[in-house]
C-alpha cells in the first residue's frame, strides 16, 4: 500500500517537476479506446465481402464475391458453408436462424435451410421484377426492412464503359443511353420498395451507384451514392417516396416524364427538380466511396455515439460518423471520421453491429482500392474526447463534445479553422471545389458545463460545405486530446 502511494507520488512529482513530461505520457489516440481484431478466415476464401449480418443465435453470416454464403461461430471460431452459387451477392437481411434474404445481381432471393442440416436447400425468388441488360455495372443492393416489414433495394445504373448483352431481361428503352451512366431497363437508378403483397414498386429515383441503404433511429431511410457524373462528390440522401435525387438517367422510368433524353434537360431544370443530399463527403481526402450506413443501436456498448449512424468508406482506415439534424424541415448535417487506430484496414464495404455491441466490418477490394477480410472493432470502455454533435445556429455552429473540454484550448479561436466551398451539380464526372474561402470565427463561447462551444462565423452561406479543421482541444483535465478533427457540414439550409 505504502509502496503504491510512493509510486504514485513519485510519478506525480515527475510530472510536476517537468512540464514536458506530459509529452512523454502515451499519446492519446483512437487505439486507446477501440480494439481492432482480424477475424480468421477459412483457407481458400477470397474474402471480397459483399454482405454481412448476424443470425439470432449469434452466428455471423457473410456473403462473398464468388457467391459463397458462409457462417462463422464467434464461439467456436469455425466457418461453415450455408449457401453457394450466388451471383455477386451484395446485401443480406437475416430472417431467422435458418433463413436469410440475399440481394444478388439478378434477384432478391430467400435462402432457407429447410431440413435443418445447416446448409440451405431452398432458393426462392422473392423478386426479380427489374431489368438486367447484362451491363456489369448493374449491381443491386439491400434489402433493408422498415418497421412495417416493407423491403427496400437499390439498383445501379449501367456504365457506358461497356455495352449490354444481346439478350436482356425487361423492357428496353434507349432514351438515356447518351451519357456516362444509363438506365436502359427498368428501374435502373432507382430505390425500389417491395410491399408485403410481394409487388416491387419504384420508390425514388436519381441514383447512380447507391451502394448502401440504412434507417436511422426514427426510421428515416438513407441511401449513399458515389461521386461521378452528376455527383460532384459522394453523398448521403434522406430518401422519401416519389423524390428525385439528382442523376437524371433513371428519370425515363418515371410516370409522366416526357420523352426526352434526360441529360439534354437544362441543368437548372434538373437542379430545381432534385432533392439535395443530407451530407456531402468531400472527395479524396475525406471519403472516396462511402458504403453502408448503419445505426449504432448498441445502447452504449460501442461507446458514446449510440443513436447516431456510421458509414464505411472504401479508401479510408476509418468509418464515418454522421451528425444529422433537421433544419427548416430537411435533414442535413456533418460527417466526421471515427478512427479505430492503425490496425483498421481500408475497403470497409459492409458494417453490422454484433449482439455484444461490437462493430463487424466486411472488407472488399473488388475492382477498387480496398482490402479483403473481416474485422471486429470493440469499444474498450473509456470515453474519447470527440465531437458528439455539430448543430447549426443562426450565426454559426454549436459543437457538443463527449466530455467537458479544457477552457483554454476550447476558447482559442485558432483551434477552429473553417473553410467553405461547394461542389457543382453537373453532368461532368465529379467536381472541383468551387468558391473556396476561409471563414473567420468571430467568437467562441463555452457552456457552463464545459461540453459545448458556440462558434460565431463571419458568414453563413447556404449551398456550401463548411469544413472545420479543429486544433488540439483537450479535455478538462488535459489528459485527452480531440481525436477526430475534420468535420464537414453540408449547409443546405440556414437556421432561421
Amino acid at each position, binding site marked *: 500500500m505504502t509502496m503504491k502511494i510512493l509510486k504514485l507520488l513519485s510519478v506525480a512529482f515527475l510530472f510536476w517537476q517537468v512540464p514536458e513530461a506530459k509529452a512523454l505520457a502515451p499519446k492519446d489516440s483512437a487505439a486507446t479506446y477501440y480494439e481492432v481484431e482480424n477475424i480468421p478466415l477459412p483457407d481458400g476464401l477470397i474474402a471480397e465481402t459483399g454482405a454481412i449480418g448476424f443470425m439470432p443465435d449469434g452466428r455471423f453470416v457473410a456473403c462473398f464475391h464468388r457467391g459463397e454464403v458462409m457462417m462463422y461461430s464467434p464461439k467456436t471460431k469455425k466457418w461453415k458453408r450455408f449457401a453457394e452459387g450466388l451471383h455477386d451477392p451484395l446485401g443480406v437481411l437475416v430472417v431467422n436462424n435458418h433463413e436469410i434474404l440475399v440481394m444478388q*445481381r439478378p434477384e432478391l432471393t430467400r435462402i432457407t435451410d429447410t431440413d435443418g442440416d445447416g446448409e440451405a436447400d431452398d432458393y426462392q425468388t422473392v423478386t426479380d421484377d427489374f431489368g438486367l441488360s447484362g451491363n456489369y455495372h448493374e449491381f443491386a443492393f439491400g434489402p433493408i426492412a422498415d418497421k412495417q416489414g416493407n423491403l427496400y433495394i437499390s439498383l445501379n445504373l449501367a456504365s457506358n464503359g461497356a455495352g449490354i448483352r444481346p439478350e436482356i431481361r425487361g423492357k428496353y428503352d434507349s432514351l438515356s443511353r447518351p451519357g456516362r451512366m444509363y438506365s436502359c431497363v427498368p428501374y435502373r437508378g432507382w430505390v425500389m420498395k417491395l410491399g408485403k403483397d410481394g409487388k416491387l414498386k419504384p420508390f425514388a429515383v436519381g441514383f447512380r451507384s447507391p451502394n448502401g441503404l440504412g434507417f436511422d433511429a426514427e426510421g428515416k431511410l438513407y441511401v449513399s451514392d458515389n461521386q461521378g457524373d452528376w455527383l460532384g462528390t459522394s453523398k448521403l440522401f434522406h430518401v422519401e417516396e416519389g423524390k428525385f435525387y439528382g442523376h437524371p438517367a433513371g428519370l425515363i422510368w418515371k410516370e409522366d416524364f416526357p420523352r426526352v433524353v434526360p441529360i439534354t434537360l437544362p441543368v437548372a431544370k434538373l437542379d430545381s427538380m432534385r432533392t439535395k443530399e443530407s451530407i456531402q463527403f468531400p472527395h479524396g*481526402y475525406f471519403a472516396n466511396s462511402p458504403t453502408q450506413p448503419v445505426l449504432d443501436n448498441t445502447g452504449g456498448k460501442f461507446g458514446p455515439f449510440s443513436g447516431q449512424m456510421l458509414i464505411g468508406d472504401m479508401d479510408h482506415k476509418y468509418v464515418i460518423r454522421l451528425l444529422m439534424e433537421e433544419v427548416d424541415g430537411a435533414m442535413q448535417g456533418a460527417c466526421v471520421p471515427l478512427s479505430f487506430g492503425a490496425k483498421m484496414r481500408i475497403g470497409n464495404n459492409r458494417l453490422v453491429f454484433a449482439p455484444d455491441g461490437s462493430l463487424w466490418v466486411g472488407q472488399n477490394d473488388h475492382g477498387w482500392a480496398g482490402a479483403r477480410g473481416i474485422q471486429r472493432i470493440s469499444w474498450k470502455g473509456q470515453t474519447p474526447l470527440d465531437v458528439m454533435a455539430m448543430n447549426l445556429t443562426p450565426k454559426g455552429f454549436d459543437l457538443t463534445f463527449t466530455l467537458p473540454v479544457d477552457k483554454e484550448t476550447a476558447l482559442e479561436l485558432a483551434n477552429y479553422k473553417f473553410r467553405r466551398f461547394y461542389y457543382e451539380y453537373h453532368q461532368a*464526372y465529379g467536381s472541383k471545389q468551387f468558391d473556396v474561402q476561409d471563414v473567420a470565427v468571430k467568437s467562441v463561447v463555452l457552456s457552463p458545463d464545459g461540453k459545448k462551444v458556440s462558434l460565431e462565423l463571419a458568414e453563413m452561406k447556404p449551398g456550401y460545405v463548411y469544413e472545420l479543421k479543429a486544433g488540439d482541444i483537450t479535455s478538462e483535465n488535459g489528459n485527452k486530446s480531440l481525436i477526430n478533427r475534420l468535420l464537414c457540414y453540408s449547409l443546405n439550409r440556414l437556421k432561421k
Partner: protein
Amino acid sequence: MIFKVSALCCPKINSYLPGILKQSLKVFLICAVTIFFLSNQTAFAQRDTTITLKVLGGLQFDLPRFAVRPNTKVTVILDNHDDMAHNVVFTKPNSRLKVVDEALKLGDKGAKMDYVPNSPLILAHTKILEPGRTESISFLIENEGIYPYVCTYPGHGYVMYGAMYATTKALPPLEKDLNVPEGQRLGTPNMADHSGHHMAPASPHPYPLEYPLLYRTFMPDCGPAAIAVALNPNESYCFDAGKCYLRYAWSGGFVDNTDHWKGNGNKLAKIVGSVYWKDETGFPFKAGKNQKIPTVHFKGYHLTKRLPAFRYMLDEISVSETVKLSAKGNGIIREFTFKNNPDVLFFTTGNPAGIKFTFSTGKYKNGVLEIPAGTARLTITSTRI
C-alpha cells in the same frame, strides 16, 4: 553512362565467368564497357515510340508493363474508356509509392492539381481524364531502368499501375515481375486445361467442389439471369432464369468463372468442354388450344442432394423442372411437374441434329409434343445418337 553500363554488366559477366578469369575481371570489364559503349552509338540512337495505354475496368491499365529502348522519345496516349476518372503519371525508378503518397497528401488541393504533386520524382503525367477522354504526353527516356507508371487519382494508386522498362534485354517472366500488379501478374489457374480429363479442377472456394454444382453467373447465349449447373465434373447445362427454359447442354467440363470474377464482372463465364445440344427453337411451351405464349415468372429452385429443381410459372400454371443425367450418361432427362394446367400444353423440341427425344406421355409430331390437359408429370429424355 559508363557507370551505368558497368553496373548493369558486372553481375552478369561475373556469373558467366569461369573462376580463373575472375582475376582479370577488371581488364575484361573495361573492354566490355568499351565495346558496349561503342555499339551504343548505333543501337541507342534516339528513336520515337508511341504506346497506347487503355484503362480497363477494375482499376487496371491494359498494359501491365511495356518495354522501350533507352534513349527513346516515348509518346503515351492514355485512353480512358473506364467509367471513372483517371490519370497516368510516369515516375523515376522505385518512386511509385512515394509519388502516390505525395498525391494523397495534396488533400483538398488535389483535384485542382490533377492529383499530381510537384515532385522531382515525376517524369511526365497526363491530366485527370474523364471517362471517354484521351490525352497524349511525350517525354525522353535516356537511361536504362524500370520506370513505374501509376494513376494517382485518390484510391487508385495502390492498385492501378504498371512498369515501363527501358532496356534492350528480355523482360523477367510476367508472373515473377513484382513491378506489375498482383492480379495482372498472377492471373489464376486456367480450369480449361482440365477439360476432357476426369481430374476435378481446384476449388476456387473455401470448400472442395461437390457435384451437382451450380453457379448463377453471366453465360454466353443466354439471358443475363443465367444458371450454370454441373451434374458431374463432365456434364453440364445452362438454364435461363429470366426466360425460364433450358438453353443448352455440354460435355467435357463445367464453367470457368475466372474472368467473370476478376475485374468488373463484364466478362462471361467460359464453357469448359463442348456444347452438344442447344435449344434453337426458343421458349418451348405454348398454352391452350390457341397455342398462346405464356407469361413466365421464375420462382427459384430447391436442392435435393444438391440437384436443383427449378420452379416457374407459365401464366397460372406452376411448373417444376429437374434435369438429370440419363442412366447411360449419353443424354439428359428433363422431369416436369405441372399444377393448375386444365388445358393442353405444347412443347417444341425442334429437330436438332444428333439428338433423339422420347417422352413419358403426350403426342409427338413434327418436333412438337402435345401434353394432355391435367398432366401432372412429364419426362423428356434427349439422347445423343
